[in-house]
């Protein structure tokens, strides 16, 4: 918040002061506050100013209270001790009925704590700016190819260079690349440390300057270092520098050995730097090693080879709409100039980087925030009920005070003050609850929720808590305050307590109806998410994850230079792995399922797709013959690869069902030709030899792309993953390590873990929102039950005498009990009905979060309401039983 905004907030707060005082002093108070702000000195300027605002607003609230309670009086002695009067009175009142105070404060703490926790997650993930300089001006470039074609955050090198020369509203564009075809990895060797596989990302020299990231040691890359086959220089991540090089500050300027080549270290990135990217980002990752992107300007790749992740920085003052309009112009020019873009109907989108990164998390978090607000509404209803109950008991006291000359306004103010005191206590406790839940949530670490480490209690969260406190205090305090102020003195004083029974009862019942209905909505939503999660867990992803062990191997170029070296190593490894007891089958693939987007493989199956090359793409993977058997994936038709499917034989592919259906809808795919390279290229066509079951390798809930498999034997990469099928009794992790070490003691084996864990990680975001929703749902249920119990108990207590009379007149205890339950059901049933209607209208907003469950799922809509009726009825049973045990003599004597 800047200075002027703080002043604006303060000016709003001044409205609390009584008008005559405000009119007299407003100008000076405002100037005083602004001087206080202006006098603040660095560091922590913003924080200090915010604290000044908070204290000044508290000061205004305080003064406003004092001035209203006790207008200025000449006798200064009489002012003594009156400052705390209202609040002290409220506190005294609360200590006199501790049960009420504890119930109200705890209820408020739960509701406010839950809402603040959810808000802090929303704040950390969605609202806090990215940790780059002026992050609001950063955009990520997406390229769309025609109708029904691909949309990817990836740009060709030639287009990227054209953006830089054509755009006028952008300060600059910077690019990062995934490097080779199969991820960007390298092997670090040298020194006394063991060889280590690291991620390597080539970036343009302006990449870090564009983000506003400065190396803590050394320098940025220079323009000269972008020259093709230019200097071999690298920057290191802070983590790698600390871990492998012990934070040696003399490392800059020296060389390290990467993939057997010496590279000069020119800089070290700051700690905590992370490359934040949308999930779709192509190959580029948050690497340990960065090197300059050295583009061969003399021989640019075709414009449909989209290998770069491109960020743009807008000039100051440029809106996203203007930036988009400019990219539209550039796209028009590209279509007009290059036939390949005309054919592909290219479109370019400049997406605000922050929106792009958090878009996946947004729907679930927004839903949770709405749910938290509903819980807060239930809390308000509950506390309002408690206050109303208390107010009707205190009706006599209030009536006496009115008779003694207290104005109705004073009574209302006193009740409202009580509300504020309760809300303030609840907020403080609720914040403690928030701190604890944040610690718990970050301990859960849902892998795919971006930026969870950002979730802390900052000034936005505190502001939210304060606002929630004030709003709840007003909401739950208002009804009793108005009700109290309406007290009719005569009737109450004449009639004793009994008159109070009818009054407020309707309001209390209304609140209960709302509470039960809202909690039903929450419970139905939670129920739908549970059902969705269960069906997500039951998804057959196209492979059998249980009993499957996986790991990755990266062979250093230096020691495995020979063409067949990687293949030979894999074959000996396979033999050794198969010798381990319990291992039934071993296969290999270039990239494991559920480990990132991976390389794409364009294909074409008719004239249109051939002309618009790259308009349809599949996941391209290289596998060994045993891969499908090991994974438990069904071969639908044809055959799997054999050892003969190598580079010396005609090129063959295996495709999945979805591509078979799309490309060869009119018959058997096996034996047909699939175009796998641009028209005119040698080897543009490959023969389909097999069709397999589709695998969900990106998202368990969704078929993202089809898959095209090539034989590893045609080109065995030094980077590959191994899958080991075991009989499921135990994962032979140690034996696998031993087998690898026996072959080559330096063999970098990484990511040795069961496939089940990868699947669980993929379920983590769903589990996370489910957990929070379940928490909110149970809280709502708990609060609603307490509400029902409280209201029925109170009504039974008020009707003790009536029950006594009825029993004296011969009514059986069972009948009384039944009558109480029937009375409760008269409230519960309409609430359930209302809740079902509201839930039916609102669950369609859940649609995007549900998998395999209809938003109006009949089972959920039957079981949850029935369950709620049962537990709500049970909640009334205790008071009902109390009614049936009333002793007529005692009840009648009470009067």
């Amino acid at each position, binding site marked *: 918040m800047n200075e002027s905004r703080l002043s604006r907030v303060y000016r709003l707060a001044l409205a609390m002061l009584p008008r005559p005082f405000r009119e007299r002093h407003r100008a*000076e108070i405002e100037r005083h506050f602004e001087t*206080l702000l202006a006098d603040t000195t660095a560091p922590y300027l913003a924080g200090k100013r915010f604290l000044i605002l908070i204290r000044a607003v508290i000061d205004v609230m305080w003064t406003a209270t004092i001035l209203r309670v006790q207008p200025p009086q000449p006798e200064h002695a009489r002012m003594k001790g009156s400052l705390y009067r209202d609040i002290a009175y409220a506190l005294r009142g609360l200590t006199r009925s501790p049960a009420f105070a504890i119930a109200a404060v705890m209820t408020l703490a739960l509701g406010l704590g839950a809402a603040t926790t959810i808000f802090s997650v929303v704040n950390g993930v969605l609202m806090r700016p990215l940790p780059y300089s002026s992050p609001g001006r950063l955009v990520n470039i997406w390229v769309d190819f025609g109708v029904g074609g691909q949309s990817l955050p990836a740009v060709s090198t030639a287009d990227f260079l054209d953006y830089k020369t054509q755009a006028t509203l952008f300060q600059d564009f910077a690019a990062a690349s995934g490097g080779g075809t199969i991820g960007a990895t390298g092997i670090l060797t040298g020194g006394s440390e063991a060889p280590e596989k690291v991620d390597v990302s080539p970036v343009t020299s302006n990449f870090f300057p564009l983000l506003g990231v400065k190396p803590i040691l050394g320098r940025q890359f220079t323009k000269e270092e972008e020259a093709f086959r230019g200097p071999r220089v690298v920057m290191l991540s802070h983590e790698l520098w600390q871990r492998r090089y012990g934070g040696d500050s003399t490392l800059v300027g020296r060389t390290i050995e990467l993939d057997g080549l010496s590279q000069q270290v020119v800089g070290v990135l700051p700690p905590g730097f992370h490359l934040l990217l949308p999930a779709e980002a192509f190959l580029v990752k948050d690497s340990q090693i960065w090197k300059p992107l050295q583009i061969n300007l003399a021989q640019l790749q075709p414009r449909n080879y989209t290998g770069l992740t491109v960020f743009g920085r807008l000039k100051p003052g440029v809106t996203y709409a203007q930036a988009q309009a400019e990219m539209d112009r550039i796209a028009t020019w590209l279509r007009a100039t290059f036939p390949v873009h005309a054919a592909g109907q290219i479109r370019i989108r400049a997406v605000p980087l922050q929106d792009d990164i958090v878009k996946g998390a947004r729907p679930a978090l927004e839903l949770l925030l709405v749910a938290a607000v509903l819980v807060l509404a239930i809390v308000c209803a509950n506390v309002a009920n408690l206050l109303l109950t208390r107010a009707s008991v205190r009706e006599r006291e209030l009536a006496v005070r009115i008779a003694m000359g207290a104005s109705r306004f004073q009574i209302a103010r006193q009740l409202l003050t009580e509300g504020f005191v309760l809300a303030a206590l609840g907020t403080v406790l609720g914040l403690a609850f928030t701190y604890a839940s944040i610690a718990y949530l970050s301990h859960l670490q849902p892998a795919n929720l971006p930026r969870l480490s950002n979730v802390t209690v900052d000034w936005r969260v505190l502001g939210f808590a304060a606002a929630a406190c004030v709003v709840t205090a007003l909401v739950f305090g208002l009804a009793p305050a108005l009700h109290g102020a309406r007290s009719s003195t005569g009737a109450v004083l004449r009639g004793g307590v009994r008159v109070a029974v009818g009054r407020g009862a309707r309001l209390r019942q209304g609140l209960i109806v709302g509470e039960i209905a809202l909690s039903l909505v929450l419970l139905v939503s939670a129920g739908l998410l549970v059902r969705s999660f269960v069906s997500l867990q039951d998804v057959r992803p196209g492979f059998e994850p249980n009993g499957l062990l996986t790991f990755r191997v990266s062979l250093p170029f230096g020691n495995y230079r020979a063409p067949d070296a990687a293949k030979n190593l894999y074959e000996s490894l396979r033999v050794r792995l198969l010798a381990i007891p319990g291992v039934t089958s071993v296969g290999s693939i270039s990239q494991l399922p559920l480990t990132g987007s991976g390389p794409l493989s364009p294909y074409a199956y008719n004239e249109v797709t051939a002309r618009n090359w790259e308009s349809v793409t599949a996941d391209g993977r290289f596998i060994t013959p045993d891969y499908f058997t090991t994974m438990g994936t069904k071969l639908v038709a044809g055959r799997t690869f054999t050892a003969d499917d190598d580079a010396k034989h005609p090129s063959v592919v295996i495709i999945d069902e979805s591509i078979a259906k799309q490309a060869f809808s009119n018959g058997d795919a096996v034996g047909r030709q699939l175009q796998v390279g641009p028209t005119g290229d040698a080897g543009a066509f490959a023969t389909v030899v097999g069709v397999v079951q589709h695998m969900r390798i990106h998202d368990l809930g969704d078929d993202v792309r089809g898959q095209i498999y090539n034989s590893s034997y045609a080109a065995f990469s030094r980077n590959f993953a191994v899958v080991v099928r075991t009989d499921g009794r135990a994962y032979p992790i140690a034996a696998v390590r031993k087998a690898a070490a026996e072959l080559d003691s330096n063999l970098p084996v990484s990511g040795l873990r069961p496939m089940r864990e990868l699947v669980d990680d993929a379920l983590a975001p769903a589990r996370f929102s489910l957990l929070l929703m379940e928490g909110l749902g149970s809280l709502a249920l708990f609060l609603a039950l307490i509400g029902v119990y409280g209201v029925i108990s109170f009504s039974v207590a008020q009707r003790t005498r009536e029950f006594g009379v009825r029993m004296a007149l011969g009514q059986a205890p069972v009948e009384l009990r039944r009558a109480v339950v029937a009375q409760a059901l008269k409230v519960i049933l309409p609430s359930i009905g209302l809740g079902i209607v509201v839930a039916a209208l609102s669950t369609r907003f859940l649609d995007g979060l549900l998998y395999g469950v209809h938003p109006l799922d009949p089972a959920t809509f039957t079981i949850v309401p029935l369950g709620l009726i049962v537990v709500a009825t049970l909640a009334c049973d205790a008071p009902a039983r109390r009614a049936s045990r009333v002793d007529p003599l005692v009840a009648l004597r009470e009067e």
Partner: protein
Amino acid sequence: MSPSLALKRNWFHVLVALSDADRHGFDIMRDVLEQTDGALHLWPATLYGTLDQLAGAGFISELASPEEHPAGQSEKRRYYRITTQGRAALAAEIRRLEETARAAKLRLSPRRAELR
């Protein structure tokens, strides 16, 4: 008003601030901060509330016309001056504090045992 009654803390320090010069609100706040070594910060609403109360009690007055403002000072600010009554109240309070302090000191001193 009996001189034996304690002055409120805010009142006391504002009166002390005005005892050597006419001051405007922000200046008073700064002086009180200085007097109390930063212990008492009069935030704006409290400050002007206190000034109203002091004026209501007749202990201070607001300078009405611009001529009365100290030379070279901004006219837009409202200046306050301590009244005779205010000085008397402050003097009484100082006396009271001295009495209290003396009484307390007496108790602390070794002679206390003999006096008993």
